[in-house]
Each structure stands twice: as C-alpha cells, then as structure tokens.
C-alpha cells in the first residue's frame, strides 16, 4: 500500500506545472480547451442554480477537470464509460455536448436524456458514455458487466468506472473489484479522490486516506496520481487503458483532486457543515487548467492573450447554447409513459 498520501489535509500533491511530453502542442491546446469548456459549463450551471432558473440538484466538478479529459484522450466510441452524481465533466470530456447537457439540466426534450434525467442521469451512448446515476456505487458493477460483455464477445473495448472516495465505503465496490479481478475483465476503475463525501472529509470517515488499498487487496494493479496534473493523468490513463485493452484485465487509478464547490449546488455548503476553509485556497493553486496553461505558455505554444481569447470564445458559445436550451420545449406529457419500457 502506498503511504505517499498519508496526510491529505496538507497534501503533497504538487503545485508544479506539468512537463508536457506525450502529445503535440495542438493536442494539448485541444485538451486545454476541453478543460475550459467543462469549467465554463459548470460555472454557467452554477450561476443558473443560484438564479433559480435551474431547479434540479447539480453536483459540480470545478477543479477536477483534468481527470476525465486525460482519461478520455485514449478512449474510443466503442468503449463504455459510467459515471455518478458528479458526471458533467465525464460526459463532456467524451461528447463536448454542452448544449445537450444544458438542455437536460433544464428538463428539455432536446437534452441528452430527452429531458427525463436532469443533471444526475445523463447518457451519450454514441460517444461511449453509457450513463450516470446518483446512487453511490451503483454503476461500478454495471461497468464490470460492460467489461464482461466485452470479454464474452471478444471485442477489444474497455469499460471505465468513475467514482469518488466516498463510494469505497459501499460494499458493492468490493464485490465488484473481486469479480473484475477474478474474471480478468477489461475495466479501468477511476477513483476521483476529492477528499470529501458530501460534507465529510475522508479523515472523518476512514482510518486511511488512500482508496487504492482496496485495489491492492483484490490483486488489481493500481496507480495513485496527482489528478490535477494533466500530464500525469494522461500518462497513467494511457498505460491503464493499454493494459485493459491488450491484456484484458482491470486497472485502478486513484486520482487525487479537490472539489472547489460544495457537495451540491452553487455555493460552498458551509451552512450544512462543510469544513475546509483552510484547504480550499492551497488547492486552488493546484488548478489543473492554470497549470496546463502555464506549461503551454512556457513552451511558447500559446500566449496569455490566446488563453483569454479561448475563454471568451467558449463563454460566448456556451452562453448562446444555454439561452437556446432555455427556450427549448419541455418533453410532451406522453413521453412519461412511453419511456418506461423499451419501444
């Protein structure tokens, strides 16, 4: 078991900027734009939760953008990714469908789940996003089952299961790790350890702070990484996906990160007991977007003004999409009964 992360209250996850080697500058700029898109989409959602225009519960992943963007880089549309309650970034990293996400959150028929799911139940089958649900841990066996289907049908696809540190407190996780390990299923478990489960810090819930100990217990290869360093995420996900694809066995990534917002909604949730004022500012210095930006500027791939213009262009595009989604129609009443069984 790793002991590198034995005091996450004062995390040793670095502030240093990523050393960019794996991809071309053009590819890194695309990843930067993806991360900015996720960040701005979450900020627009946050603003509209605050204004009251969005009513459904939204669990935002601002600060965690590098993980899904890095993982998705080596996936293709035949692979299957399953998420959780905090899955806007997982979905967008595969689809970049901000409009479909906005419309879904607003309950519109143009949404990615036809307005039937809201923020917590989103799907993008054609791009490989198999679905997200908010029951903590529920999609882990589903991802394992996707892996079983891939094994039985002798395809080369892989399944990805995203979950948080709190999920490791559910029993089905351990059943599922055992099954994936014993049957050699091509599943990449991605634990986004953002140190919080709802309002509770990991130190208030577990004796140890590294979730990868459970992978170790089931004989699954694992890596514990800085989830806010895009290069580290890329490097690890490339290896993990290659192992799952070619050797047909699982891999476990524990990506340590931090959630800038509270558990749910637009604010910090201090009023419901979230205690982390001392930690938030140091973690904001580990901003995955800022760090990639710095690296790209340092190697003259972009300028400060390029970065500003990326932000402005994405903000303009997403604002227009949100306005369009607001004016879109709601699902027709008959859709309620028409989607209970397959048609």
């Amino acid at each position, binding site marked *: 078991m790793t002991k590198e992360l034995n005091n996450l209250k004062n995390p040793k996850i670095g502030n240093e900027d990523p050393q960019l080697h794996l991809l071309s500058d053009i590819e890194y700029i695309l990843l930067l734009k993806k991360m900015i898109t996720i960040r701005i989409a979450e900020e627009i959602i946050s603003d509209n939760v605050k204004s009251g225009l969005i009513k459904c519960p939204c669990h935002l992943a601002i600060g965690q953008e590098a993980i899904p963007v890095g993982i998705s880089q080596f996936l293709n549309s035949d692979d*299957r990714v*399953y998420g959780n309650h905090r899955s806007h970034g997982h979905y967008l990293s595969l689809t970049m469908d901000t409009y479909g996400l906005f419309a879904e959150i607003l309950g519109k028929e143009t*949404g*990615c*789940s*036809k*307005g*039937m*799911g809201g923020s917590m*139940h*989103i*799907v993008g*089958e054609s791009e490989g996003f*198999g*679905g997200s*649900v908010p*029951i903590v841990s*529920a999609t*882990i*066996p*589903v*991802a*394992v*089952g*996707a*892996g*079983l*289907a*891939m094994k*039985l*049908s002798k395809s080369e696809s892989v*399944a990805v299961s995203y979950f948080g540190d709190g999920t490791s407190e559910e*029993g*089905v996780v351990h*059943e*599922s790790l*055992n*099954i994936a390990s*014993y*049957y050699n299923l091509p599943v990449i478990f991605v634990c986004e350890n953002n140190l919080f489960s709802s309002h509770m810090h990991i130190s208030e819930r577990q004796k140890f702070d590294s979730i990868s100990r459970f992978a170790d217990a089931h004989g699954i290869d694992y890596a514990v990484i800085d989830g806010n360093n895009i290069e580290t995420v890329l490097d690890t996900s490339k290896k993990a996906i290659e192992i799952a694809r070619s050797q047909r066995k699982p891999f476990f990534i524990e990506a340590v990160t931090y959630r800038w917002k509270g558990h749910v909604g637009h604010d910090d949730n201090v009023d419901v007991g979230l205690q982390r004022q001392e930690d938030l500012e140091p973690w904001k210095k580990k901003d995955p977007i800022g760090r990639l930006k710095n690296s790209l500027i340092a190697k003259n791939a972009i300028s400060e003004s390029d970065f500003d213009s990326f932000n402005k262009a994405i903000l303009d595009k997403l604002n227009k999409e949100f306005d369009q989604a607001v004016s879109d129609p709601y699902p027709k009443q008959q*859709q309620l009964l*028409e*989607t*209970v*069984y*397959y*048609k």
Partner: protein
Amino acid sequence: MSKTITYGSGIQTAFEHVLENYDDSFIIGQGLWSPWYVGNTMVDLDKKFGKERIIDCPVSENSVTGTALGAALNGMKAIVVHPRMDFMVLAADQLVNQAAKWQSMLGGGIKIPLTIRAIINRGGEQGAQHSQALHSWYAHIPGLRVVMPAFANDARDLLIASILSNDPVLYIDDRWCADLEEEVTELQELDIKTIGPKIVKEGSDITIVGSGFTSCQALQAGKELAKDNISAEVIDCRVLNPFNPDLIIDSVRKTGKLLVLDGSWKNCGFAGEVIASVSEKFVDFKAPPKRMGLKDSPAPTSQPLEENYYINIHDIVNNAKSI
C-alpha cells in the same frame, strides 16, 4: 399416452433453447455448476455450453446482478440466477433503482435484455430466510416486468419470452412446482408484451385467481369443488407487472364471486391488487371478495408450525364454499 413435461424440465428446455440459438446469451449466478442450488432445471448446462457462458459465481448478489445489467446494456442477453429469492434482497438496488429505471431516466430507446431468475424455495424446515415469495415488492416497480409461471409449458415459454425481451424481467419460479407435469405443447418464442393472465379452468360459479404455485393449488381446489357441483373458473395471473386485470374482471362479471390466493403475506400484497383492480370496474359482487395468504409472521422452522403456515387445498375449498 400423450407426452408430458415437468415444470423443471420446461425451465431446462428453455435455457437450452436460448443458449443454442442465441450466441449472445449467458447465465451467471450462484450454484450453476451444482444441482444443490437449482435442482433439475440447469443440469449440465456448463458441460454443454461451457463455463465461460454458464458462470457459477461468488456470493455477491448485488454486484452480480449489476454485472448482468451492465452486460445487458452492452449487447448481451444476460441471465442472472438467484437460487433463493431471499438472498436477492441484497441486489434490490440493482433491480429497483437501476435495471427498472435506466430506460426512463435516460430517455428511452435503450435495450436492456436482462432476465433475473428468482427461485422460491420454501418448506422443509428451512425457515424465515429460505422461503420468501417477494413478488409483490417487485411488481410495485414500473419498468421491471414480473413473470411468475405456474405450469410446465409456461415455465418454458415464459422463460424464453423473458430472455428475448428488451426489458428487464424478473422471472420467478417455484421449487414446489418443479415436479408438476403437464401435457407438452410445442415450444414457442412469444413476445412478452402479449402475455397476461390465462384461464386454466373454465367455470361459472366462482373465480379463483392465483399466481405461481397458488395457481396450481387453485386448479386442484377447482377440481375438488367440482365434486360438490361448484363450477370454479381458475385464472393464473402469469404476469404481475405490468398487470392487465381485464380477463379477471370479465370472469367476475360472469361468476360474481372472487377468491384470490397469494403465496405471500396479505398486507400490501398481490391478492389485494387483484381485488382492487376488479373492484374498480365491478361492484355487483354476490358476496364480498376474499383473499388468502400466509399468516402474518416470518416462516417458522418447527414442523407442526410450518405445516399450518402455508395455505392448503382444504382451506381453499372451504373458503370458496363460504363466499
């Protein structure tokens, strides 16, 4: 003499038919390599079709059910077996929150060919955790089809229909039916959407409704009643969700009397649903409808207590006569 089929061999035949004809089908569950768990219903399937497709698995009901769901979402006809329904309660999240809801929550158009086979296996002093018939719980849930065959040909054809359905289906069979025989009919691949309650004995004096093993009891009671010149119409529910009560309503319009049997408890149970569904459409009962179920206690182990716990033919006949 005509050829017969047992309920258990009907299930075996259905599995063999599907495994032979559909390469994308597989079965996972506890005890699949051992007759200990699944009796004579899955004999040597692992030897015939390979241990890759017939997977005897760890004691992880929740994860195994979710794994089957995940495989079904990814193009497989997935069958998961729970040799005792009591243990399936550990998988309730995957059944109730996941399998039943993904279609609706994610906007429809998603094929989920998942079959969950749950076996009711009571009696023999097994007690409270090896005996429960929890069909009413699951029949409550929109999105989860619940099928409960009572007779041998249905055991076969309803299982095939369940596996070929693109919706999650909870297929509940009963160990007490396993050896019951019926004249064999030709195997059919039916569309589950077309299957509903069925009249298994025509009659004109009283309608007796059952599901699963209680349908077998209802039929036997109907034959007993005939000796006393009481003509009972016996209806087997077969599909509990989505439930179509029309056939039962039509029968009660004819007989004016209704007795409903349920192999489980009465409170919030399926017998109450049948009576309510009829009562919403029909008021001219000749006498108040009645239901029979288990005593309001967990199943006992002690033999004399157990003997009085489950409903028996004698009581069914007496109740029918009292209406």
